[in-house]
């Protein structure tokens, strides 16, 4: 989508503060990036001062460090250990209750808790990830009531990337770095302010209460230049041409043994992944066994028990579990949901404690294809 000059407005830092307040007044919990535990994470935001202004991060396979910038940008970083999925697809939630009464068992499901979130600082790859999870939790099949409720009340303020991390490869996955749709507002940070593009009626309504002016041609050109800088900085690549068939033809490749010798099967990649959706339901009961909750928690295909059947675990080796994760993410996801499960955010590379890089693994698996 090309944006004509008159559709882009300019807003200063006070405007951003006003935006946060307006959304909070509408009943939204505004969530945005802030610094905690040595990282840029997502948490509640009340004030622009809480944003990681003047900070960036260095993401490498298996290491991540926050670092001061030599300017005062509010969004001068990419993605950290958290993703937005923790708000829409909660790590832990109750899906059913059973109570033993004089009349016998009574079973019900609690009404999903309505939380009106406003996400501030959603990147292009993250918009793509939300779209991927939309298909999982409210696609053609069964609806997840909690996800659907939260998603339908979500306000999204996208932020355009103006730089890229070494682990980014959204350009390979066709998901970024530029946000084109799927947001209520999209911001590009330029010197002394933000360029704002409206993406929805709700976004337009909110912006009417904020002091803005039409952006100048120079400002718009500056925004384009900054967004292009992010494109230019992306060096990591994943060859996606025919990737489904290429990977599914390599289910017995020796590279799976090689990666299994390095992989901890610790599930960190799946926990930080913004699209991984696997979950389990646990029984939580009191000693009398008369008040029982069924709680859904994030689970992972890297768990030995995850594929357990009567005869034992189907995927009883790290080799088979890594293969399941990678081929699902990049190949069979396409059969299931019509798109790749990978959005190129690079979290699984950075947050793997031993720095396993899926783009490298795919390159090794498919090395002989090139020749």
């Amino acid at each position, binding site marked *: 989508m090309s944006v004509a000059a008159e559709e882009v407005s300019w807003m200063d830092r006070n405007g951003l503060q006003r935006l946060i307040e307006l959304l909070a007044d509408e009943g939204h919990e505004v969530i945005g990036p802030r610094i*905690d*535990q*040595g*990282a840029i*994470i997502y948490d509640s935001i009340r004030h622009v001062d809480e944003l990681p202004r003047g900070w960036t991060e260095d993401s490498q396979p*298996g*290491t*991540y*460090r926050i670092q001061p910038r030599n300017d005062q940008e509010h969004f001068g970083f990419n993605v*950290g*250990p*958290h993703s937005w999925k*923790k708000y829409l697809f909660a*790590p*832990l939630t109750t899906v059913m209750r059973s109570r033993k009464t004089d009349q016998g068992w009574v079973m019900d499901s609690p009404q999903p808790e309505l939380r009106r979130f406003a996400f501030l600082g959603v990147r292009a790859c993250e918009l793509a990830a939300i779209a991927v999870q939309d298909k999982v939790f409210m696609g053609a099949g069964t609806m997840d009531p909690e996800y659907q409720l939260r998603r339908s009340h979500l306000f999204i303020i996208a932020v355009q990337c103006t730089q890229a991390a070494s682990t980014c490869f959204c350009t390979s996955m066709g998901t970024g770095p530029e946000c084109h749709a799927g947001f209520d507002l999209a911001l590009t940070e330029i010197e002394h302010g933000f360029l704002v593009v409206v993406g929805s009626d709700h976004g337009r309504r909110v912006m009417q209460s904020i002091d803005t002016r039409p952006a100048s041609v120079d400002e718009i050109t500056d925004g384009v230049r900054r967004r292009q800088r992010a494109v230019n900085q992306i060096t990591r690549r994943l060859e996606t041409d025919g990737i489904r068939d290429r990977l599914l033809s390599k289910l017995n490749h020796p590279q799976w043994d090689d990666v299994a*010798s*390095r*992989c*901890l*099967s*610790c*599930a*960190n990649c799946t*926990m*930080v992944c913004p699209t991984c959706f696997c979950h389990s339901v*646990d029984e939580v*009961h*009191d*000693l*009398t*066994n008369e008040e029982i909750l069924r709680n859904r*928690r*994030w*689970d*992972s295909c890297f*768990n*030995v*028990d995850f594929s357990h059947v009567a005869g034992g675990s189907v995927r009883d*080796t*790290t080799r088979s579990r890594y293969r399941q994760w990678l081929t699902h993410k990049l190949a069979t996801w396409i059969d299931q949901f019509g798109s790749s499960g990978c959005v190129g955010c690079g979290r699984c590379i*950075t*947050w*793997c*404690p*031993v*720095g396993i890089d899926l783009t490298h693994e795919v390159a090794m698996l498919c090395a002989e294809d090139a020749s």
Partner: protein
Amino acid sequence: MIKAMSKPKLAVVKFASCDGCQLTLLDAEDELLAIADAVHIAHFAEASSTLEPGPYDVTLVEGSITTQEDLERLLRLRADSRFLVTIGACATAGGVQALRNFADHDEFLKAVYAHPEYIHSLRTSTPISDHVPVDFELRGCPIDKHQLIEVLSSLIAGHRPRTSSECVCQPCKRRGTVCVVVAQGIACLGPVTQAGCGSICPAYDRGCYGCFGPSRQPNAMALSEGILQGASDRQQLANLLSNFNVAAPAFSAESQRLWQLSSRRSSK
């Protein structure tokens, strides 16, 4: 399963241990009355001086086997117990006292006791499962209160108990903790350690020290090779592995390997 018609008879018995795991039962303040109501506590020296003889429906066993006398007592206890649950790192892996398995037992005796000739202890500290069949195992140093209650309530209901087999990283990420290995370069055993503790340590900026023992299929060598750069880190990780679960096979194999590597380094 027990599915007792009357209240199941519970025994809590200790071998070589610090009593900390038994205390977890007493620490379950909110639930303790319900437990006392749901089971018949027949033998629990920490709580009551009335010690009833077996047989018991459920026996919680704390501690490791370090003397011949304890071994004989364990064999009798097993015969008296329908469902035997080992609780804690001592009972499930030999405990921190199993450090002696990797050292000279006589030297230790001489260093500690004025008259070692009066001490009749075994050369090794071994888990209960080395000697008798164990029906269920609760890890930890100490064990986790919620897991203990889960096991007891399952047994009371007549269900086979179950605890999660995931590693420490998953509850760690579910609670929103940022990985201390990746973001701070802290040595952490989380990726090879059984969950159950609530992943507390990384939430307070320190690495997991493995008190719940090895996870289901731990790749400890890949962890040390993957996160360690220098020899000092090797020693640090070997120290972490040589704690409460030092004698758990997956941990001892890797700590021995790391000790050998670092001693080879330093002798160069």
